[in-house]
């Protein structure tokens, strides 16, 4: 059935007229934050127009009026299903500009937590995709697995979603006790959950028919549109920042990058499913290699001293005062730092004028590029195919509209 999956029944000689439908922003599949205007002939989408911007909160402009450390809570709210990845991406950009490197233990912590976030991101995306195809049970299984991770995220960062865990030159606090054992047992449970989910959908004929050969994005188009991440990789664009431009300690870890062949919805689903397995692999390696040591750089111009020292020594009190009033004085210059976030290459372009405030912050949100290509992917398919295609590009409006 899959070869004629794209051909819809033709009305033949009957006279038809097109109808314009607004999908969203108040539409169950549009998250309330995006509108797709479609022209349909019967069920076939002739033309589509994606309108974004419903969740624009001015992150970039707000960042100009905040000290570098104060920007971190805002980055949580970019891609809110993988907040750690944004946190660490911004921290890395500022560290590059400062010319410092976070301590080795911190780098491992960042890899571990970042991969946890990647798993939550992919579970959410694949889960939502399954739910929108009517598979409510696998969706809740995915959410159950995600919930296990949120529990441990809460233990580490004190919050489930708005973690605000990273700092320039380190992380806010050390990992809790028994973190390793707990995380390993959680990962084991998640692997069981994934087995349940895969058994329900991966080889399910209905599920495959709904996804295969639909929403196709060719490799050339993916590169032309600037699409990276799982969506690009599903189209065959073999690019992963973690491997091609290693940061943190990714070059010491062994992991595979899944590549798709057809660039259709099913490939995007499978690539994400496999990336979850790879992330679990990375986390296990990083937990074995996790060294002891400081979690922050020992530079009082960047990291705040202990509270005890602040109250008892004049140097620390001065450092505290300067950090609170002036912020971290980042040398004048500009940097483009990019990391592999849940949706692809998350770039932070920061211009500094030497003060404690960034002069300009610009984010390269990966799903902005995915969403650009959406009209090309859904034109010619039917109304029912918009939903999985839209789900598979994992549009996160916080990141898209900033």
């Amino acid at each position, binding site marked *: 059935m899959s070869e004629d999956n794209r051909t819809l029944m033709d009305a033949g000689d009957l006279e038809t007229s097109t109808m314009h439908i607004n999908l969203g922003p108040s539409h169950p599949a549009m998250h309330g934050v995006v509108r797709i205007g479609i022209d349909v002939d019967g069920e076939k989408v002739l033309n589509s127009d994606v309108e974004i911007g419903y969740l624009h909160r001015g992150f970039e402009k707000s960042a100009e009026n905040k000290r570098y450390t104060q920007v971190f809570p805002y980055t949580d709210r970019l891609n809110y299903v993988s907040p750690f990845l944004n946190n660490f991406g911004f921290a890395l950009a500022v560290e590059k500009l400062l010319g410092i490197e976070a301590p080795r233990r911190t780098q491992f912590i960042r890899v571990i937590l970042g991969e946890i976030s990647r798993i939550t991101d992919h579970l959410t995306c694949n889960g939502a995709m399954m739910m929108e195809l*009517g*598979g*409510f049970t696998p969706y809740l299984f995915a959410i159950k697995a995600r919930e296990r991770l949120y529990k441990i995220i809460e233990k580490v960062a004190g919050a489930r979603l708005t973690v605000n865990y990273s700092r320039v030159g380190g992380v806010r606090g050390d990992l809790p006790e028994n973190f390793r054992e707990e995380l390993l047992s959680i990962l084991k449970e998640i692997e069981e959950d994934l087995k349940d989910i895969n058994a329900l959908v991966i080889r399910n004929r*209905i*599920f495959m028919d709904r996804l295969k050969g639909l929403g196709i994005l060719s490799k050339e188009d993916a590169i032309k549109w600037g699409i990276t991440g799982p969506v690009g990789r599903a189209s065959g664009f073999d690019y992963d920042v973690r491997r091609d431009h290693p940061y943190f300690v990714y070059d010491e870890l062994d992991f595979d990058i899944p590549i798709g062949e057809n660039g259709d919805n099913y490939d995007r689903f499978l690539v994400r499913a496999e990336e979850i397995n790879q992330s679990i692999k990375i986390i296990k390696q990083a937990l074995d290699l996790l060294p002891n040591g400081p979690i922050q750089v020992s530079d009082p111009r960047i990291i705040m001293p202990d509270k005890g020292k602040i109250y008892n020594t004049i140097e620390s009190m001065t450092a505290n005062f300067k950090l609170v009033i002036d912020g971290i004085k980042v040398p004048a210059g500009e940097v483009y730092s990019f990391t592999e976030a849940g949706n692809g290459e998350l770039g932070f372009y920061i211009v500094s004028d030497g003060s404690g405030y960034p002069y300009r912050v610009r984010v390269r949100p990966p799903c902005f590029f995915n969403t650009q290509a959406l009209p090309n992917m859904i034109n010619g398919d*039917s109304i*029912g195919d918009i*939903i999985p295609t839209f789900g598979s590009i994992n549009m996160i409006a916080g990141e898209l509209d900033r």
Partner: protein
Amino acid sequence: MVELIIWTIIKILFILFFVTLPLAGVLTVVDRRESSMIQDRIGPNRANLSGDVWDLSKRWRFLGLLHLLADGIKMIFKEDYSIKSGNRWIHTFAPILAFFPGLVILSIIPFGGNVTVFGSSTNLQIASFDSGMLLAFAFSSIAVYGITLAGWSSNNKFSLLGGVRATSQMLSYEVVLGLTLMGIFMIYGTLELNTIVQGQQSLKVDGTPDLLFGFLPKWGIFLQPFAMLLYVAAATAETKRAPFDVPEAESELVSGFFTEYGSMKMGMFLFAEYAEVVIFSMIFTTLFLGGYHVPYLYDSGFILPFGWGSLSINPTLVGFIQMLTFLLKVIIVAWGHLVIRWTLPRFRYDQVLRLGWKMLLPLALANIIITAIVLSFI
């Protein structure tokens, strides 16, 4: 004559108000409970009688069944919204048209054997028509109008698309539905449901049980297993439940044909779905699961196969046992039917039609031909 009228009224009241509607109502809660168990959730547990909201142990929740009451009260007391644009009269009439024709099908379903009460004997079936199942097909077709008109009169593009989808889907699957049952009609030689049920478990002329391979009762499920599978698929599509719920696919069409409905009007559409599940289960039980028959229990009592002995029972008691058996079978079938919804993802609109016309229809025709060939040799 008076006796017949009284019996008929009793039977109508019983099957409608003591079986179908309560069962359909309970199914709405069962659906939620069951899905919550499948999905590792707690499920409906808020509605309670004690008024103590905080202490879980003090609540009288009755397995969540009070949600049925709470939902009913909510539906009735919500604003009865009627649209300003579109056709208001048809809009109001559509849910009624979608709900009630299905209930007429109940009249032909035999829900028990022959019982004698106070010296008055009757078959537990409201009406015995020779046309039998044809009446069921006819009235289930009328429900299509309700859906179509609901979609059309709402003046909403999602409703319109949902209505169009529902219409083409239900019309397509009616053809399949009728053809899958042809084998059954050919084997038992009738369209009348009570005769079919009696044919599924009967005694030969010499008083010995008429069994398949010496031990299996001649139920539809054993004689027409393939038709049974086709019928389940077609009937699920006909009741518009997942994986065939494209007319109301909530991720695509918001709520499909009942997007513009509120209060009890929407409640009627939702309730009609569960009433259809009950009716589907009744027809399925009647045609494939031997109706009200308990295996090896005949009018005079048990006659076990392989000569293992027999046990005679009062015929009226047998009648009541059979009635309870029928209800039990219906509940089990309905419960199984609900599980499908929580297991499979949804088809796409054109895939549903393609499945109906290109796969189920040829298979149903093949089933008829094979059945005919086999029957001609017996």
